[in-house]
C-alpha cells in the first residue's frame, strides 16, 4: 500500500500479565476502521469474549486516535477509549469514553495510533512510551497518590513536555465511577477502574516524531483555513450571545460570549474579548468562555484565559483564578475545566445562599475540580449529582445508612449550600468508604440494585434525566425531538453525540436552520423549533442516522464531536452554510487516500455497525428493539400535562416514537421487528465476518 499520511503506522500492544510489548501495523489491520472507536470496537470484537467482566485481565482497554490527530486539522485533540464498561448495568457492554488534552497528539508523535492494554500486572505499574522506547515501569511509589502528583512525578522522568494519562485513588480502588485524566483537566469517564483493575496507574507519553501530510502543503494550508473560517464558538454555536455589529443574528443562550467590555479579568493585565468578527481568525480563542456560560457574569473577573486540546482554537476549557476560594479552602488558586467537569462540585447542591450564579457557586466549582480531578472521580454526565439530590431529599440516604454513618456527614452544610461539604463526600467515594461512599461509586444501575430501588421510578422521574442501562440521556427530545430520542436508544451509556444539538442550538433563526436542513437531510421538516415539535418525518430519521454516523466518524478520525459536524457556519456570505464534506476533505488530503463524503460515511457506518454487533453479542439477543433500544417513561410525560406536539413541551408520543424507530431502522437497512442489522446491512459495510459469527449464534434477524 502506498505510504499514507496522517496515521503514525503502529498500534502498540501491551500485555501486563506477561510484560510482553509488541506492535501491529495500523494500516494493514485497521485502515478500514480509520482509528479511534473503529480500532477499539474491532479489537473488542476479535479478541474479547462477550461475557468478560470489565475488571477481568481478559478485558482490553484501547486508547486510540485517528489519522487526523496531531495534525493542524482544527478540533482533532480527542482520544477515544474503548472497553467493557463497569457502570453498564445490569450487564457490562461495550462503551467508550473520550479525553481531550495533549494525549492524542503526543501519542501520534511518539509513533502510535493506538495503545491496547490487556492482562493485569502483578503490582502497580505505569506504561512509559518515549518514541520507540516502551517500558512497563514500577508505579508502586505512585499508587495511592492522586492524579496530580502521579503526573508531576512521571513528568520528572519523561520531561516537562510529557503527556500523562493517570488514574487517581478512585480508579485504584476499582470505583466504577472513575476517570483517567491527562493535561491537568481532560478526563475520560468510566474507565479509571478498568485501568485500576490492571494495576495500571498511568500511561506517560513523550513523542518527538512527525506526521506526514500527503497532500501539497499549499492545498493543505488552504483547506485548514477553510475549515477554520467555518468554525463558530464552542459546540459550533455560530451567532454571538448579544447583538454585534457584524452579526445579523444573536442568541442569549449562545456559547459565543465575546463582546466589548467582557474581559479575561484575571489576565495580567486584563484582556477585553471585544468584537470577534468571524472573519478574524486571530480572535477565535476569545469567542468562548464556558466559565461565564455556566457561572454567569461573575466568572469574567476570575477568567485567566481559555485552554483545551492540542491544535484546537476554540479553548472550551476555562482557566479561572479565585484567590478567595484558595484562601478559604486551602486549595490552589487556579482551576480549569468545562461543562460537567467545571460543574462537578456545584451540581451536588440544590441551592446556594447567593443563588445559582453567585460566588458560592464558583467556590463549589473550584473545590469540586480540585477534589474530583485529583481523586479521579466521574460524574456520569452529572447523573451522580442528580441521583445524590434525589436520594438525599427523598430521605433514601438517611434510610440506607446506619445512624452512625449518617452522622459522619455535615448535612446542615449540604442543605445550606456550603461547598465544604464536598471534603466529606468526594474522598469517601474515591475510597469506597462506608455505605454511601460505596453505593455512589457504583454507577446508577448498580446503586439502584444495591439499595433495592426501582429503575422504573428513575425512568418516570422528569428531572433525573435517566435513560437506561445505568446512564442518563445526552441531548434527546429536549434538543431535537424524535431525532434526539432515536440517538439515545443506540448506546450502552449516554451517547456523547452532539452532531444534532450542535446544529439545533447554533442560534440561527428557525427559517435558516430549516433551509440548511433541507439541503443536508432532504427537507425542512428534519428540524422543528425547540419545544414546538411536529410528528415524525422520514428526514428526522435521516438526520438521526447522519448524527450517529458522524459521531463515530469523528471518534475514529479524531475530530471533536463537541464541535462538529460543520453544516452551519457564522458566515453571512455563505448563507450560514458550513460544509458537510469537511471530514472527507481533511481525511483525503492528510492521508492521500481520497474518499468522498459518502465513502467516509460508509466507513463510519462500518464502525457504528460494529458497535451494534458488539452490543448484540454482549446481550446475547437480537431483540434490540424491545430489549435495548428503549425509551424511558419521562420522555412521554409532561409535568404540566401538556399534550405531545403542543407548543411548550418536549413530550413525545409513544406511537410516534415507534414510527421514528421504524423509519430509523429502515434508514439503516436493519430489520424493523428486531432492530437488528440484517446480513445485507453488515455486508454492505464489509462486516461479513461479523455477520457470520452472529449468525452462528442465532443473533441475526
Amino acid at each position: 500500500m502506498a505510504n499514507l499520511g496522517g496515521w503514525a503506522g503502529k498500534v502498540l500492544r501491551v500485555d501486563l500479565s506477561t510484560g510482553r510489548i509488541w506492535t501491529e501495523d495500523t494500516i494493514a489491520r485497521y485502515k478500514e476502521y480509520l482509528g479511534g472507536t473503529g480500532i477499539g470496537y474491532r479489537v473488542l470484537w476479535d479478541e474479547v469474549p462477550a461475557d468478560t467482566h470489565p475488571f477481568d485481565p481478559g478485558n482490553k482497554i484501547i486508547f486510540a486516535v485517528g489519522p487526523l490527530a496531531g495534525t493542524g486539522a482544527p478540533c482533532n485533540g480527542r482520544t477515544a477509549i474503548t472497553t467493557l464498561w463497569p457502570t453498564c448495568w445490569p450487564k457490562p457492554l461495550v462503551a467508550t469514553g473520550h479525553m481531550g488534552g495533549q494525549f492524542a497528539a503526543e501519542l501520534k508523535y511518539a509513533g502510535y495510533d493506538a495503545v491496547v492494554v490487556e492482562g493485569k500486572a502483578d503490582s502497580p505499574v505505569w506504561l512509559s512510551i518515549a518514541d520507540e522506547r516502551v517500558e512497563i515501569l514500577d508505579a508502586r511509589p505512585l499508587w495511592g497518590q492522586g492524579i496530580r502528583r502521579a503526573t508531576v512525578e512521571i513528568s520528572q522522568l519523561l520531561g516537562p513536555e510529557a503527556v500523562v494519562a493517570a488514574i487517581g485513588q478512585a480508579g485504584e480502588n476499582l470505583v466504577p465511577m472513575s476517570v483517567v485524566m491527562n493535561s491537568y483537566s481532560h478526563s475520560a469517564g468510566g474507565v479509571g477502574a478498568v485501568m485500576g483493575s490492571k494495576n495500571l496507574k498511568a500511561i506517560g507519553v513523550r513523542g518527538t516524531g512527525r506526521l506526514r501530510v500527503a497532500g501539497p502543503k499549499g492545498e493543505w494550508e488552504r483547506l485548514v483555513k477553510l475549515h477554520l473560517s467555518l468554525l463558530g464558538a464552542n459546540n459550533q454555536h455560530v451567532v454571538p450571545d448579544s447583538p454585534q455589529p457584524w452579526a445579523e443574528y444573536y442568541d442569549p443562550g449562545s456559547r459565543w460570549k465575546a463582546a466589548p467590555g467582557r474581559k479575561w479579568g484575571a489576565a495580567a493585565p486584563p484582556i477585553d474579548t471585544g468584537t470577534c468578527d468571524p472573519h478574524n481568525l486571530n480572535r477565535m480563542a476569545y469567542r468562548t468562555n464556558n466559565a461565564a456560560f455556566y457561572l454567569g457574569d461573575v466568572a469574567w473577573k476570575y477568567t485567566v484565559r481559555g485552554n483545551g486540546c492540542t491544535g484546537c482554537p476554540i479553548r472550551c476549557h476555562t482557566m479561572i483564578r479565585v484567590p478567595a476560594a484558595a484562601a478559604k479552602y486551602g486549595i490552589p488558586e487556579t482551576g480549569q475545566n468545562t461543562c460537567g467537569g467545571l460543574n462537578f462540585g456545584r451540581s451536588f447542591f440544590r441551592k446556594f445562599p447567593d443563588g445559582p450564579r453567585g460566588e458560592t457557586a464558583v467556590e463549589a466549582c473550584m473545590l469540586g475540580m480540585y477534589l474530583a480531578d485529583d481523586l479521579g472521580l466521574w460524574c456520569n454526565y452529572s447523573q451522580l449529582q442528580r441521583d445524590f439530590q434525589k436520594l438525599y431529599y427523598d430521605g433514601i440516604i438517611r434510610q440506607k445508612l446506619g445512624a452512625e454513618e449518617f452522622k459522619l456527614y455535615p448535612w446542615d452544610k449540604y442543605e445550606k449550600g456550603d461547598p465544604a461539604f464536598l471534603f466529606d463526600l468526594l474522598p469517601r467515594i474515591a475510597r469506597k468508604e462506608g455505605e454511601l461512599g460505596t453505593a455512589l461509586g457504583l454507577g446508577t444501575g448498580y446503586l439502584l440494585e444495591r439499595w433495592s430501588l426501582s429503575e422504573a421510578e428513575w425512568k418516570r422521574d422528569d428531572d433525573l434525566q435517566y435513560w437506561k442501562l445505568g446512564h442518563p440521556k445526552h441531548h434527546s427530545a429536549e434538543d431535537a425531538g424524535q431525532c434526539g430520542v432515536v440517538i439515545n436508544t443506540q448506546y450502552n451509556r449516554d451517547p456523547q453525540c452532539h452532531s444534532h444539538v450542535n446544529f439545533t442550538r447554533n442560534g440561527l433563526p428557525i427559517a435558516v436552520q430549516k433551509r440548511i436542513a433541507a439541503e443536508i437531510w432532504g427537507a425542512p421538516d428534519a428540524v422543528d423549533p425547540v419545544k414546538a415539535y411536529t410528528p415524525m418525518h422520514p428526514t428526522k430519521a435521516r438526520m438521526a442516522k447522519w448524527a450517529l454516523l458522524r459521531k463515530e466518524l469523528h471518534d475514529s478520525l479524531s475530530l471533536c464531536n463537541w464541535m462538529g459536524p460543520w453544516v452551519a457556519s457564522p458566515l453571512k456570505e455563505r448563507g450560514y452554510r458550513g460544509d458537510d464534506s469537511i471530514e472527507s476533505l481533511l481525511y483525503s488530503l492528510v492521508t492521500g487516500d481520497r474518499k468522498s463524503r459518502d465513502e467516509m460515511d460508509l466507513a463510519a457506518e462500518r464502525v457504528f455497525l460494529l458497535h451494534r454487533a458488539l452490543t448484540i453479542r454482549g446481550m446475547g439477543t437480537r431483540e434490540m428493539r424491545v430489549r435495548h433500544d428503549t425509551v424511558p417513561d419521562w420522555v412521554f410525560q409532561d409535568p404540566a400535562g401538556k399534550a405531545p406536539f403542543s407548543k411548550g413541551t418536549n413530550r413525545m408520543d409513544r406511537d410516534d416514537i415507534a414510527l421514528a424507530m421504524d423509519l430509523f431502522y429502515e434508514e439503516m437497512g436493519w430489520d424493523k421487528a428486531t432492530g437488528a442489522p440484517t446480513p445485507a446491512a453488515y455486508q454492505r459495510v464489509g462486516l461479513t465476518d461479523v455477520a457470520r459469527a452472529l449468525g452462528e449464534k442465532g443473533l441475526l434477524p
Partner: protein
Amino acid sequence: MTQIQDRGREVNPPKWEAQSQTAIQVIRHSSGQGQLATEEDVLEELVALHLLEGPPAGVREALAEILAAAKTASDDLRETQDQNGERRYYSAQFMTEMYAGLLVRREGDPLHLIAEIVRENSSLYPRPFPIGGFERMPFGMGREEIRQCLDRMAGLDAYQDIAQTTTSAGNTFLYSRTFLDPEYAAALAEWIDVGQYDNP
C-alpha cells in the same frame, strides 16, 4: 468625476479621490466601532485634512457629491435614515443591515425599541428575550429605565402584545403575544435560562 469636471470646477483628480476615500474610511471606521456615521463625521474629517473648505452652502453641496461618489467607489457603503430622517452611513464590511437598524431604533423611542426587539426575537428564532439583555450593549439601558418603559407600555394600545414571563431562576423574559403564546413563551424562557444549563 466627470460630473464635477462638467461643472467647470477645477478639482484636482487626486484631491477628489482623496475626498472620496476619506469619506469611505470615516464610515468604515465608525462601523468598525459599532457606530453609524453622520454627514458631520465625514465633514469633520475632510475639513481636518484640508480636503474641503469654503462657504457653508458650497461645502454642503460638495459633501453630498463626495458621499454619492464614495458609495459608487466602494461596494460596501450603505445608507439608512435615522429617526429624524437624517442620512446615516455604514459599511457592510463591518456592520449588518439588522444591526444598523437596531442602532437607528436605539436613538428613538425606547418603548418602540424594546417592542421591536422583542417582536423580532419572538417571530424570527423564535424565542422570548431576557429583560437583562436591554442592560447590555448595544442597548445600555438602566434597570429602572427598562422598568419604567415596561410600565408605560402596559398602558398603551400599541404595545399590548408585549408580555412578561419569569423563570424558576427568577429572571424575567419578554415576548410578543402576536408570535408566541404564553405557555410556549414560558417554556422557552425556562429552557434558555435554566434548561440549557441542566442539559449541557
